[in-house]
């Protein structure tokens, strides 16, 4: 096989992917292993880009906040991990993150694998939040902030509440079964 043919094929597929993302309004995306330093750099470039587009500082901060909460969720909880010696500090967690615009609304979508055993817990957590209004979310946030986090939580267990408070409509979520161990969990948060 000619090397040039292989290259053409690859460019074609990448261009199709690029077009597909643009059609969905997505202007930033990352798929692969994520880290804290990568998060800080992604945050910087997103802030710069939104500033150039004259987004207001509260909006920029809200989008940044969604990216932080969701990326740290992936870093802490993604079931897709490459571990070394079983030491959690050396695990690399993988996921996908995309930021885009739909009309005058920004959205941050993320996806990662989760253990099938965690699906019900996540579903019920997010379903409850979707029914709450701003005042209820505020009270729930303050109440949870004073409690000790549950066993599964590596942070404060406040991430989704924080996101629900910053989003302009209820957070959308979806679970797609992958195999008998994992499901693909995706979350979409809208910001104005």
């Amino acid at each position, binding site marked *: 096989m000619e090397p040039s043919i292989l290259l053409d094929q690859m460019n074609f597929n990448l261009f199709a992917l690029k077009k597909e993302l643009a059609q969905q309004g997505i202007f930033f995306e990352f798929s692969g292993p994520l880290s804290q330093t990568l998060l800080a750099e992604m945050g910087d470039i997103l802030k710069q880009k939104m500033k150039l587009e004259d987004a207001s500082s*509260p909006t920029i901060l809200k989008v940044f906040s969604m990216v932080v909460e969701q990326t740290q969720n992936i870093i802490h909880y993604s079931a897709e991990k490459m571990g070394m010696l079983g030491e959690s500090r050396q695990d690399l967690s993988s996921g996908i993150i995309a930021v885009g615009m739909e009309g005058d609304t920004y959205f941050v979508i993320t996806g990662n694998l989760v253990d099938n055993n965690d699906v019900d817990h996540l579903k019920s957590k997010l379903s409850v939040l979707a029914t709450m209004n701003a005042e209820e979310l505020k009270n729930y946030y303050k109440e949870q*902030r004073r409690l000790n986090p549950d066993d599964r939580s590596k942070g404060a267990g406040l991430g989704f509440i924080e996101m629900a408070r910053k989003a302009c409509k209820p957070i959308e979520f979806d679970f797609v079964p992958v195999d008998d161990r994992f499901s693909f969990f995706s979350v979409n948060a809208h910001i104005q």
Partner: protein
Amino acid sequence: MNRLNIPATKYTPLIDFDPKSRLLVIQGESYPENTAEFYAPVIGWIKDNLSLLASEPTIVEMEIVYFNSSSSKVLMDIFELFEDQAKAGKRLKVNWIYDADNESAQEYGEEFQEDLEHLEFNLVEKKS
């Protein structure tokens, strides 16, 4: 009593607790990967030193541009330690400093303020 000084990074704030000037400063952004680990020495210092230090007027200056949800929890834990001292009659006050165009920093300051009964917690708009 030792001074606690932790320089700021991109995702952790400057911590400068200076017993000589009775000024405790937390300034910057706070979204570490492991919040409990980052704040452990801060909480340790407060538990070891604050009671003695705040027998004279002591000021806490907090200017946090952005903090993630797990930092929010730790900040509440810190304010509760301050609240205990204030309740015991210690002379401690917090100035929560925010930029006029950062409405969330102001709102989040207000939400801490609402949950504190004994601690003097002032919202201070930064002059730009």
